[in-house]
């Protein structure tokens, strides 16, 4: 086994950290408190190339490998970019744009990928429904073929970028008599009659990402907006799992490094009982636990990225292990980080409670920890 990164990969990570610290981080607190999306930061991420890193250059991407892409996500977290913006980036680039890239026609790729890679357009992905969360196959949204159109009816919930998206990848049943095999994927543009989104939901964390319902009322789209073939939707959604378990988890790992640095600095500065609190073993214990979780979690995430780069089929067991670990095992260290800051940790100024709230999504979004355990136990 070889855990090394190339020099170029490491240099790029440093570049992303510098970029994020300069262009994004100074505005995080303002947007986080106001629960608003930072359009300007998103546009700058597009200009820098982050939004389309792994797409080919001719489509406006950078042609980067998966490990570099994952390192960029880690770098954003490490620089102090909030989980809301990194989630918005994840949903946009991987759940939406990558699905269009992989399963769209040439014309669809040319139409959407350059706009999404540059940040000119924002994308979202609608899978979850009010009655179908973990149990995806029970979705009720239907797409009925009428001539050379499909007519969509139903609704989606918890859709990241829902209120601000220009284009959505939407999953719907074309054959309600089937379970997974009845699901198909469609591309739906903002402004399509019968398509609308709800008000942004108020959430515990990831405040700057805008999450909402999507509504489809006799929403009529051209038949060519079907991605791939009918019945392939579930498989497409599962393909995004590779990204979910690598690029979308990477910012959590990065924000662990961010927290660790903050805790170390604070523990050396904060004096109680006549000495910096870093000198108490209880503080060292907490700092050690954050470090241990980071060291343990990082390789799990990179293993998925490496697998993808080397063209291996996704190992669903290993992917679920990475997600389960990143979701469940990082909660305690994040809690510890808040404790190191005492009362200040509970207040917004020091940004640790923000990390805690953002991190709380990890065991829920993209398949809960229970669902990961189900996958692992079935595959073992």
């Amino acid at each position, binding site marked *: *086994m070889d855990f090394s990164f190339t020099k170029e990969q490491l240099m790029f990570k440093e570049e992303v950290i510098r970029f994020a610290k300069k262009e994004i981080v100074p505005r995080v607190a303002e947007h986080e408190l106001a629960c608003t999306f930072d359009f300007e930061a998103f546009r700058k991420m597009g200009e820098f190339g982050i939004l389309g890193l792994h797409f080919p250059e001719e489509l406006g991407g950078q042609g980067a490998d998966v490990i570099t892409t994952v390192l960029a996500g880690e770098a954003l977290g490490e620089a102090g970019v909030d989980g809301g913006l990194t989630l918005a980036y994840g949903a946009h680039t991987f759940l939406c744009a990558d699905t269009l890239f992989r399963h769209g026609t040439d014309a669809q790729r040319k139409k959407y990928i350059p706009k999404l890679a540059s940040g000119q357009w924002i994308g979202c992905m609608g899978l979850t429904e009010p009655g179908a969360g973990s149990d995806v196959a029970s979705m009720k949204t239907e797409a009925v073929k009428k001539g050379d159109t499909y007519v969509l009816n139903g609704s989606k919930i918890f859709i990241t970028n829902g209120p601000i998206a220009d284009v959505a990848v939407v999953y719907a049943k074309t054959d309600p008599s089937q379970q997974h095999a009845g699901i198909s994927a469609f591309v739906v543009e903002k402004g399509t009659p019968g398509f609308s989104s709800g008000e942004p939901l108020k959430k515990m964390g990831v405040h700057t990402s805008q999450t909402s319902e999507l509504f489809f009322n006799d929403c009529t789209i051209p038949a060519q907006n079907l991605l791939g073939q009918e019945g392939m939707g579930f498989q497409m959604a599962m393909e995004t799992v590779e990204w979910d378990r690598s690029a979308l988890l990477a910012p959590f790992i990065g924000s662990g490094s961010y927290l660790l640095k903050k805790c170390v600095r604070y523990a050396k500065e904060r004096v109680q009982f006549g000495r910096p609190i870093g000198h108490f*073993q209880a503080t060292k214990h907490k700092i*050690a636990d954050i*470090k*241990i979780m980071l060291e343990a979690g990082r390789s799990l995430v990179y293993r998925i990225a490496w697998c993808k780069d080397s063209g291996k089929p996704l190992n669903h067991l290993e992917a679920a292990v990475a997600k389960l670990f990143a979701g469940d095992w990082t909660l305690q260290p994040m809690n510890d980080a808040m404790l190191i800051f005492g009362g200040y940790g509970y207040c917004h100024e020091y940004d640790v409670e923000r990390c805690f709230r953002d991190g709380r999504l990890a065991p829920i979004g993209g398949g809960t920890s229970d669902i990961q355990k189900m996958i692992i136990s079935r595959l073992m």
Partner: protein
Amino acid sequence: MNFDYSPKEKAFLEEIGAIVSQYASQAGSRVEKPLALILKKLAATPYLRLGIEPVDGMEGPQSLMAAAQKFAAAYPSLYLSVEMSTRVFGGALSRFGSATQKEKFLTPLLKGELVGAMALSESSMNVENDALATTGTVDGDKVLVSGVKSFVINGPIANVIAVAGAYEGGTGIFFVPADAPGLTIGEPLGTLGFEGALISAVSLENCPVDKNFVIGPLAHKEAMDALKLMENQVLVGAALGAMSAAFEAAKKHAKEHKSGGRPIIAYQEVAFKLAEMLTMVQTCELLAQRACWLLKNNDNQALEVFLCAKVMCGECAEKVASGALQILSGSGFTAPNPTERAYRNAKFVQIAGVSTEIARVKIGDMELGYGK
């Protein structure tokens, strides 16, 4: 990056798996008989040399860790005995020994013809390496060694014991033959785990050691850090072995044992526990591999990441074994069996080498830039 073992490593791991599995049925018994046999067999493979000297086509400590996991899963006490001899006693020679010392001890060790022990720790440990109370005093061309070491693995069966002590303003390692005058080896101790390994107290009173067979004086911190790191590698391997033995036993049982007409893995209370256990096993394996990779590359983070691996693997070993015991229920509680053995052994991993508490303090110090 590459998360695969090379074809050569895979073949080697299979070979080791085949050797150690022949001994698994004796895993509850004392090691003195199987030890000589398995050392000969291992000497015919790259196993003993890994991490001690370069071996073509192998990844040193990384290949060793993967093999160690198999060995420690099959027969934990035998593993501990072989490793304390090869990797700690042998490791000290390989790292600090002179050509004469290597010729005399390391050569037969790697042929499987000599058993060593390392007497390092004294009555208590500390975060900053306290000076050792055991001493070596020069007396002509001899060094007279005096002191007490409370727990020495292989004490009763070693041909030679490496004893660490204060020496000429630094730290010395004295190679004391088992028949040296002034050396008293205590009775084998009864222990909670690794009950097949022979562990005893060792006391030395003006025990004469030929000056040629003394390492040092070494800088105390450097010597202690290096020796503890060797010990920690052995213990991380022991933890991985305990985890995989317990997990495999629980998985097998959960698929075969029925309740309410269904295999118990059909129940989430069982299946999800297994999923959590496997997550710990895989996470620990990767963390240990990364620590070994840093070590192989002489990376200055190796010491700290090894401490992280030691804490994580030691604690997960107990959790995995505990989960496995729940799943095995009655058949796990009726000893002896690999799972209850793993549960007992896990505790040792947390205590020995650098204890979990001291390791966390050290990691904290390293992150904070404290400590010397």
